[in-house]
């Protein structure tokens, strides 16, 4: 009754091809944006920002990136952690080399640099596919982490081998460094997430997205009907890495502040983002949000329930978390291979027919 397309007439092409053609969707989208931009910054505190909101925003960007590559173009990548590291180190080098340039552009530039690296490691995808490619991307993961660990130029010859973000401001407000306010960092990341989501959503609706999906569904057939696999795969790698690079830059500069590459961007990170994409739903932008939210919230909830309420030692809770994440992934793959996004679609369909389901 509330959610339906009946009575929603479009009289121009612009109206007809907008991102959310159904009124209810559109208003919900505006509402979410309004709450995120106008309400949350006023109520946010440090705990919420650092434990939940910042990781959620940053991982959501990474998940959108990986979803483009894996969900839309069908190329499984286990190198997300490595590409995030490229973003982080690019951001660090830019921040220290050009201190006068605005941090906003540094983040965008790190994304572009990561896109270049992504294309480089995407080249083998033209010859190999499936899990052969997955293993090939592992090469990217291990090689990049090793590179940032071993070549002192990348961490400016600092004694600890760590990189730490210098203080940078945007419109006179600090967004990186030790003295940031929760709302400033939150808004900074939110702007990037909103931008990424809008770009990704519209790319996947257009020609490029369709060529990706054609490659995903059957690459040989796609080639025969005139899709250029070279262009489709490499653009997917480039755009995916762009988003992943941005998320890596934010993860380092805004969220952590100081980073040791093997710890922050190891293989576990690659799997975490991959799980977000699977649990959220392959081939769905909403799914990236849902998956990121789910996997960011799960450890927090488990910690609150297990350690704080039941008083279990934290190592048991950590082990239980592995057990639960693993179990959930299997359950999702068996019961709902399309993830949380599919649950959401089913709910919408129910809502559309309600209260007369026949």
């Amino acid at each position: 009754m509330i959610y339906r397309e009946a009575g929603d007439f479009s009289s121009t092409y612009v109206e007809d091809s907008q991102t959310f053609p159904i009124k209810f969707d559109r208003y919900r989208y505006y509402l979410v944006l309004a709450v995120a931009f106008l309400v949350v910054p006023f109520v946010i505190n440090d705990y919420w920002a650092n434990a939940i909101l910042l990781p959620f925003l940053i991982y959501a960007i990474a998940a959108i990136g990986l979803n483009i590559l894996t969900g839309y173009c069908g190329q499984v990548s286990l190198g997300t952690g490595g590409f995030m590291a490229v973003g982080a180190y690019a951001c660090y080098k830019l921040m220290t080399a050009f201190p006068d340039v605005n941090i906003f552009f540094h983040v965008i530039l790190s994304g572009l640099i990561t896109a270049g690296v992504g294309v480089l490691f995407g080249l083998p995808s033209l010859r190999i596919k499936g899990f052969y490619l997955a293993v090939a991307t592992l090469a990217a993961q291990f090689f990049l982490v090793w590179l940032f660990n071993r070549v002192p130029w990348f961490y400016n010859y600092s004694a600890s081998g760590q990189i730490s973000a210098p203080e940078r401001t945007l419109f006179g407000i600090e967004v990186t460094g030790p003295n940031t306010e929760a709302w400033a960092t939150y808004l900074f990341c939110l702007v990037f997430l909103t931008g990424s989501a809008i770009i990704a959503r519209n790319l996947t609706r257009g020609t490029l997205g369709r060529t990706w999906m054609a490659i995903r569904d059957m690459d040989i057939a796609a080639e025969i009907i005139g899709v250029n696999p070279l262009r489709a795969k490499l653009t997917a790698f480039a755009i995916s890495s762009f988003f992943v690079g941005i998320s890596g830059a934010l993860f380092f500069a805004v969220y952590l502040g100081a980073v040791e590459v093997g710890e922050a961007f190891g293989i576990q990170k690659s799997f975490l983002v991959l799980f977000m994409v699977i649990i959220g739903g392959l081939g769905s932008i909403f799914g990236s949000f849902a998956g990121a939210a789910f996997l960011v919230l799960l450890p927090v909830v488990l910690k609150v329930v297990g350690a704080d309420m039941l008083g279990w030692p934290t190592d048991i809770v950590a082990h239980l978390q592995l057990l639960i994440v693993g179990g959930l992934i299997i359950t999702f793959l068996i019961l709902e291979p399309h993830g949380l996004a599919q649950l959401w679609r089913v709910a919408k369909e129910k809502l559309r027919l309600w209260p007369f389901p026949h």
Partner: protein
Amino acid sequence: MPDQLLFAMEVTLNGLMAGVLYALVALGFVLIFKASGIFNYAQGVMALFAAATLVGIMDGQVPFSHLINATLGTDLHHFGWHVPALLAILVTVVVMIVLAWLVQRLVMRHLVNQEPIILFMATIGLAYFLEGLSDLMWGSEIKTLDVGLPQGINETIDQITYDMFGYGFFIDNLDIVATVIAGILVIALMAFNQYTREGRALRAVADDHQAALSVGISLNFVWVLVWSLAGFVALVAGVMWGAKSGVQFSLSLIALKALPVLMLGGFTSIPGAIVGGLIIGVGEKLFEFLLGPALGGATENWFAYVLALVFLVFRPQGLFGEKIIERV
């Protein structure tokens, strides 16, 4: 003979030994992949789980003791007995078979006919699950595993090479034992595959599921069988690696090392797994020896993957893999 050459020879020998251990893990992958088309990422964690279970049983640890203590407020640690190694290994084999049955029953049965990549991701989930289970059951601290395998430098080889070249090679006894056991295991598996009724069924299923079904081969049985075999191979690999460097989380990372081994050798070939393992083992040790100092060291972390990557671009099916034929 110049020193450098001697060192290189020693490094090569040690690389061969390490390669055998990689091959051992890779073997478990090949077994499952051939019979069910599932790429079992959890193989490494299975090795960890098997080794941890073996240690737990030998020491008479109470399973889940940490969890039980935390919920019930009890103070359980050990049953207070020590099980002899051989008996403990037998019990662990049974545990791995039960695990294989459970995996087949609860997970893989529901995923028949899914795309390979979905199955692969399911095994990643399985890997996480098993890792959590292993930590919960037996605790996550580093455990020493001692089933009575000889350890330390092999004096004979040291002596012989010293007499020949004036420089004694350092080769661990454990590596030699591991090589012998791996060799026996490979021969046994190949014989099993080739000459027994079950092995024939296994090959039939690998060739064509539906045709195998139609001549009366039980797919369920074959799949439980391969998962059990893989569990057994995982146990052997776990014992070897566990004796070498302790039972700990990094054990499960050798699974990742086995991936490039497989890509070199081809996913469907048992000899390929062995040759691939040797190439990777020797390659990474030699590379580290020759170029490691110039590049900043620890090249072992990525060498195998990059080698596999470069190799695959030229020969996508691996050294011994079946030619990939694609149809629309």
